[in-house]
């Protein structure tokens, strides 16, 4: 293995952190879901790296599964977001709380 496992772990960690920051900072439900996806992918990369490191095929298999599950997750999430948008006219996470922004649908973005 050319790249040491530690580096892969670090890459996964950094990616995970980035995803986390994304979920925390973006005021948009879709971006939050994207951030979550990034975190999942970071985990997948770490799995792959670990699988390589351990010379097991399992790691990569798990990564594949993660991709599939993540897809399902995104579809559930997006479906909810769409419903929210239909109902409130916004995807701002701040505005879905207790229907605060319902009267001003033009503020979405």
């Amino acid at each position, binding site marked *: 293995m050319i790249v040491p496992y530690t580096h892969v772990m670090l890459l996964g960690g950094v990616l995970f952190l980035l995803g986390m920051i994304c*979920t*925390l900072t973006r*005021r948009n439900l879709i971006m939050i879901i994207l951030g979550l996806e990034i975190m999942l992918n970071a985990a997948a990369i770490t799995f792959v790296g670990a699988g390589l490191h351990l010379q097991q095929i399992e790691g990569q298999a798990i990564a594949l599964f993660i991709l599939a599950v993540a897809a399902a997750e995104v579809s559930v999430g997006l479906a909810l977001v769409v419903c929210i948008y239909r109902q409130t006219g916004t995807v701002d996470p*701040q505005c879905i709380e207790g229907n605060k922004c319902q009267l001003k649908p033009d503020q979405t973005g």
Partner: protein
Amino acid sequence: MFSKPVPADSLYLAWAAAVFPLAAFGIIMIFLRRLPKAAAGVSLSAIAVSLVCAVCLLARHWHLEMPLESTVQWMASSDFEIPVGVLIDGLSLLMLVIVSGIAFLVQLYSIGYMAGDPGYARYFGFMSLFAWAMTSLVLAPNILQLFIFWELVGLSSYLLIGFWYEKLSASQAGKKAFVMTRAGDTLFFCGWLILLVWGGTVSILDLNHSAHSLSQAMVTASALLVFGGIAGKSAQFPLMTWLPDAMEGPAPVSALLHSATMVAAGVFLLGRLFPFFSQSDAAMTVCLFIGFVSMLLSATMAMVSRDIKQVWAYSTVSQLGFMIMALGAGGYAAGIFHLTTHAGFKALLFLCAGMLIHACETNDMFEIGQAGGRRMKLTVLCMTIGALALSGIWPFSGFFSKEEIMAALAAANSPVWYIGGLAGVFLTAYYSFRLIFVILLPGSTKAHGPGSQSGPEHARAVMHAVLVILAVITLVMGFFAESLQNLLTGQGVNAPGVHGPFPAKVVSPVLAIAGIVVAWLEFGRKDSARIGFAGRISPVARLFGQRWYLDHAYGWLVGRILDRGIAEGCQQNENRVIEKILHTVAGSVTACGRAAAGWHRAMIQSKLMVVFAVVFGLTLILLAA
């Protein structure tokens, strides 16, 4: 040992003397509350049995060489045992006869006096309770038993003073009596505890005989504490003001409890533990001093009071002060003898007062005089006999006993006591005859005599009979002085010589006559001003009339310091501190709850932030640790 066991027959007699009234009390309170006649009958028969037993005992043990004592164990807790039993010696025999005799007479008198009262049965129930407690008290062989009955006579006193409970002043007087004597009793109890825990014995005979083996400090401390109880019960300074108030009770109650017997229990206790007290000079001096102060203070109070029963009440305090002085001066037999004579004539005085009050429906002696109290000839005659005895005029019983007391005082270490005693003799005669003259020689009387005397004719006859019996006792008692002294001192109590120096024998009767004369000059003469020498100076009159402001002091102590001071402080602590702390805790918990609940309404990303922060933060801390 200092005693022999009581022979079985005497034991039964002693038990019977005590237990019959108890049985009467139980029967009356449980079954006979609605049957007044039966209640009176039961109560009287019980006390009659007691009296017979007492007299039999006295006759049987007239020449007693050694005290008789028998006890059985009533209760035991580890090394502490509570025995009950009887101690028979001269003192207890004498007291037993006095108590049961006076109680019998007073109950007989009450049949007429209390007739028609709605609480008739209750009255006789309480009287039986008292009779039981008092007879058991005088027979008690150890201080605990004595203390128990000491408390019980206090209880019956409370119940009887507040007998007419619808009168607020009566129930307040009862409360006052109970609480003030309780204050003394607490000291008594402490003294008892010292004797029990550090002294190792509470048996009266043991204490009397082995007091010298105990340390002086302990004897003094416990004696002084026990004296606290005596002062409370016998209404001595400074716990004296309950007794005048106790006159709210029916007159027979005052006669029995608050002059003749119950209040004398303090003197009795002092006499019981006389050898023990003698071990401590300090305690004896305190006795002398307290007796002295009480005697003079209450005599001054009696000088200005207009209430006939209050005058006799002050006089009782004063005479008890005499007795305590006598005992404090070492005149054991003198004190007890005065107790005996005093029981007779003071009961007589109170019962006469009761007749007058009943007839005139007022307590004020001037009003009684104006209402024509003197027309009740027998009553007024008996009252005069009693007053003469009280003043110490020959040949009435009071003369003999007072003479002995004066002799004892004269033999005491300081002339102050003797001079004080003389002043007391003068004042006694003065206030007694002030009363007598006010009633006997009123300036003007109403046309009609006193209102119809209540009760049926035979009842009044019984009441008169009782007065006559007591008057006769007062007349003859003095001539038994020698034999009573033999009875009392025959058992190793070393009474000092009772025959004092010559002047003493003359000085005090002269002073008594002087008192009578002064009283006549001020109240008896035709055109007298009917105002005493003390009453002329208004600050002094007010001082005496207000009982030297003792009640104010107590009122201030209880009302201000205790009630509105310490107790209110505790109450404020309860409300403002403890409750406040609780409410603060509860309030902060709910506030935290509200904050936490509000926190959960935050935006989703803030929550995510918390999740990440907590997980990573904690992990980092753990790794660093």
